[in-house]
């Protein structure tokens, strides 16, 4: 500075800067990337000492929450929730917070395996030309939607297989089952949305809605609404499950029922309620005998009667989910629980059941591939019907049950991976063409559920790409153009941003939304600035359940594969979920129920463990019909004695230094059994437990809790 600036003036200037920091920034289409610059030559919007904030969308799960990322001199410092985003209203979960540990992960893929991007793009173009379109398949993760749209367009105009989407979270949520149950009960497929926040009483049959289920932030906000008692009575929450989940831990009443009997219990409660109300059982509930159900579920008839009396004079919201749907009779369970809602006549009413709204540029409901559809893909790979497989945003070797044989089938195909991290599947790729991290990427994501407004959540790069990575959309567009012919005409775009502008073009000029703009450039600038666009019209679909109470609900007995003595309940780690294991701070977050960090455990009832001679931190082998894994014993006071449980999230053999060779993957135990909707019966098995070795001092699980005071260990007497 050549002029003399007094200290007072300088402070005034700095203050002016501070006043503008809270304003969100969007960069116009002309400036596609924010550059990391030395601070002597910062871009004009980047005041030294001041942060710049960019709105984008979280891709740690498929919910589509809005983020605002604080950047400082071109580096992302902190993720916060986007307060303008209708889905998460400024909040984030732990995984959203830790997304920076993905961006700055020391084990990212740093460049294409082909050496240069030109060679990589040529390899993709060659694959397009070399194989018949029917021999090419795309397998994609649950995010991002814009890339899925691009590949769908490409597949549609060239005759390639329509892209499949898959993620372990989607599998554990049994989305196909929920959708099919809605179709069977309401006559309309779709993802049900349960308005927990305005409910009086919630009966959750296994749904882990406060953990990773569908849209955890929206459901957690709903739960806070349920418990709110300044303006209404505090709502009551009852959870039915065989192992107390982090969600069940918040319940006012926790009812440990035998796995697979959730549907029977729902129908028995329905029968008791309808008998009290009208003296006779309605046809939907006529098939069950409450006394017999109590016996099968392993609870007292008095418990069912008590629950029914809670129900009689109030409205109950019944939610099916979690391991309840991962049974061979999962579809019947979902139907029974949805039908129970008909007794409260709460469909399309506050505190009741809706079908989720469609997002602004969405034509029809869509769902990820069910495991049985994934099985078809694997069979096609094995038979040679598919010769080239493109994988983006999913790690199928880890996330699919081993028994499906995906890894072995890879030998028959040429694998093109777009992985950002060196995961198990990327390690097998012939061509590894890394995509940017989500915070370096353009895109959009449709909010599938969790909010009454249709939301299209927008992504923009908040930092310039750290490594020699390239947006997969750009790679595909370039390859399609190099391949020529129908490929080139399928994707006639300059680049990814051009494609996104084309896809949101229908919203330009739409006056019903959170903002309106008359031209594309303005629309895109605001789309980035606000982190998306939403229609200001509540668009939840009201299901028609007028016939629900008059059709008898089927009750099929669950079947359990294997001849072990324990029911097996796998659950998604609430902190790690499907892809968190490579983020060190997520590893160091204590599990909400067990407080274990950095490893895998198997939960056993303390009385049962005593009978088996097992103690905390003993090493055991868990064997199912399909395989076996090893884990540490955790004496868990809130699990049925006939059940053992294990978290999904660890057990990687690749995926970077924080994930590798740590814990075990319960998916290795899953057999290839499905429910009637094609979802995997991941909880439909029985396992054996055998002790491998005694606990060794300081060799067991790292826990946040002290063992002292939990089971009286460490107080003397129970040392071993």
């Amino acid at each position, binding site marked *: 500075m050549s002029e003399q600036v007094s200290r007072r003036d300088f402070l005034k200037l700095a*203050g*002016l800067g*501070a006043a503008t920091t809270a304003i969100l920034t969007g960069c116009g289409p002309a400036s596609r990337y924010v550059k990391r610059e030395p601070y002597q030559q910062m871009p004009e919007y980047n005041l030294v000492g001041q942060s710049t904030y960019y709105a984008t969308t979280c891709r740690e799960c498929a919910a589509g929450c809005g983020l605002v990322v604080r950047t400082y001199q071109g*580096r*992302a*410092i*902190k993720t*916060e*929730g986007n307060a303008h985003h209708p889905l*998460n209203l400024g*909040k*984030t*979960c*732990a995984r*959203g*917070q830790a997304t*920076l*540990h993905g961006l*700055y992960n*020391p084990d990212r893929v740093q460049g294409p395996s082909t050496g240069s991007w030109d060679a990589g793009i040529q390899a993709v173009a060659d694959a397009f030309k070399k194989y018949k379109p029917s021999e090419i398949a795309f397998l994609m993760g649950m995010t991002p939607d814009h890339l899925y749209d691009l590949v769908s367009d490409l597949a549609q105009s060239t005759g390639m297989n329509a892209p499949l989407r898959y993620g372990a979270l989607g599998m554990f949520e049994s989305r196909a089952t929920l959708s099919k149950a809605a179709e069977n009960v309401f006559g309309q497929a779709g993802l049900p949305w349960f308005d927990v926040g305005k409910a009086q009483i919630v009966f959750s049959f296994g749904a882990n809605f*406060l*953990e990773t289920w569908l849209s955890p*932030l929206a459901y*957690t*906000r709903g*739960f*806070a609404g349920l*418990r*709110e*008692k*300044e303006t209404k009575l*505090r709502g009551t929450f009852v959870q039915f499950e065989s192992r*107390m989940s*982090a969600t069940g*831990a918040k319940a006012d009443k*926790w009812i*440990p029922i035998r796995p697979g009997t959730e549907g029977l219990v729902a129908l028995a409660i329905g029968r008791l309620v309808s008998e009290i109300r009208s003296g006779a059982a309605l046809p939907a509930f006529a098939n069950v005998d409450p006394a017999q159900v109590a016996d099968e579920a392993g609870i007292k008839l008095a418990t069912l009667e008590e629950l029914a009396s809670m129900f009689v004079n109030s409205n109950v919201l019944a939610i099916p989910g979690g391991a309840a749907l991962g049974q061979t009779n999962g579809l019947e369970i979902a139907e029974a629980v949805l039908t129970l809602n008909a007794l409260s006549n709460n469909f399309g009413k506050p505190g009741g059941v809706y079908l989720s709204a469609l997002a602004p540029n969405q034509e029809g409901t869509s769902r990820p591939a069910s495991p049985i559809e994934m099985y078809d893909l694997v069979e096609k790979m094995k038979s040679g019907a598919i010769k080239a497989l493109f994988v983006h945003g999913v790690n199928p070797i880890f996330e699919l049950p081993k028994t499906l044989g995906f890894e072995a089938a890879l030998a028959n195909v040429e694998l093109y991976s777009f992985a950002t991290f060196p995961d198990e599947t990327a390690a097998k790729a012939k061509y590894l063409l890394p995509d940017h991290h989500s915070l370096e990427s353009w895109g959009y994501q449709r909010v599938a559920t969790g909010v009454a407004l249709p939301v299209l959540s927008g992504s923009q790069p908040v930092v310039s790409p750290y490594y020699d990575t390239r947006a997969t959309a750009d790679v595909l567009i370039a390859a399609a153009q190099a391949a020529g012919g129908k490929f080139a005409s399928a994707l006639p775009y300059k680049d990814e941003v051009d494609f996104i502008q084309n896809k949101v073009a229908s919203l330009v000029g739409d006056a019903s939304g959170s903002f309106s703009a008359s031209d594309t450039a303005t629309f895109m600038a605001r789309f980035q600035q606000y982190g998306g666009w939403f229609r200001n019209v509540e668009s939840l679909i009201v299901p028609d359940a007028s016939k629900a109470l008059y059709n008898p609900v089927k009750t099929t007995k669950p079947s359990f594969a294997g001849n072990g003595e324990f029911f097996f309940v796998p659950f998604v780690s609430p902190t790690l979920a499907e892809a968190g294991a490579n983020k060190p*701070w*997520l*590893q*160091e*977050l*204590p599990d*909400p*129920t067990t*407080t274990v*960090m*950095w*490893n895998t455990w198997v939960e056993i009832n303390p*009385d049962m463990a005593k009978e088996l001679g097992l103690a905390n931190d003993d090493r055991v082998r868990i064997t199912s019909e399909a395989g076996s894994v090893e884990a540490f014993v955790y004496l868990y*006071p*809130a699990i049925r004695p006939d059940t053992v449980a294990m978290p999904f999230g660890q057990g990687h053999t690749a995926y970077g*230094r924080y994930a590798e060779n740590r814990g075990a993957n319960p998916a290795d135990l899953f057999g290839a059994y499905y429910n009637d909707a094609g979802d995997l019966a991941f909880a439909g098995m029985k396992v054996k437990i055998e002790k491998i070795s005694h606990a060794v001092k*300081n060799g067991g699980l*790292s*826990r*946040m*809790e002290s063992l002292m*005071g*939990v089971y009286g260990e460490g107080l003397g007497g129970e040392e071993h």
Partner: protein
Amino acid sequence: MIRPDEVKMSVEETGKWGMTINQDVCTGCQACVAACAMENNISFVGEEDSGYGRSMHWIRIERFWEGEYPDVRMTPQQPMMCQQCGHATCEPVCPAFATVHSQAEQLNLQVYNRCVGTRYCANNCPYQVRAFNWRDYQRPEPLSNQLNPDVTVRRMGVMEKCTFCIQRIHRAQDTAKSEGREVMDGEFTTACAQACPADAIVFGRVDKPETLVAQITNNGRGTKHLAELGTLPHVTYFKEG
């Protein structure tokens, strides 16, 4: 536990900044823990050290079990962090004056470059919320790009703890001062409260009766942990909303 209305508090003892925690809606999801770690440059220590109880969490979520199966129950989740005591037991034992009381902000400060690592303060803290750097914990490149420039990076031999995000307090105060006004309620909040999906954590000025946090604190249903020790904690817990 003593209810806050049973403890006679002078205005000074109420403190300036305070927090309320609604255990009825806390789901134990760990979003606050992750947000705190990201905001405050907290090191992760790895499996072995965390097994020895050396993890650096400034906030942790406590839960206990009651009863026996099948009538077993988890007690309401209890986020526990530095209670920013009015009469802090950690302060008088520090030989280096690293743990001192801020007259201006009524908070317990931890001055890292004074700390010589005697760990007396951690021994004396009844809430067990202080974390000691037993090693120089590594952040392999490029993880260090994420460090918050507003927060000191601590090294081996230094004690650390929750600061009520004092960097955010100062930033808000500076902004308000340059605009010639007072800091408004809700203008900023701590990293944990900002992330909390259930809004279980509320932060703000407890000495101004119109603020949200003061209204919740003074509704008479809360408890202060170990208030009977006379520590005058500035965090109020609500078991049932």
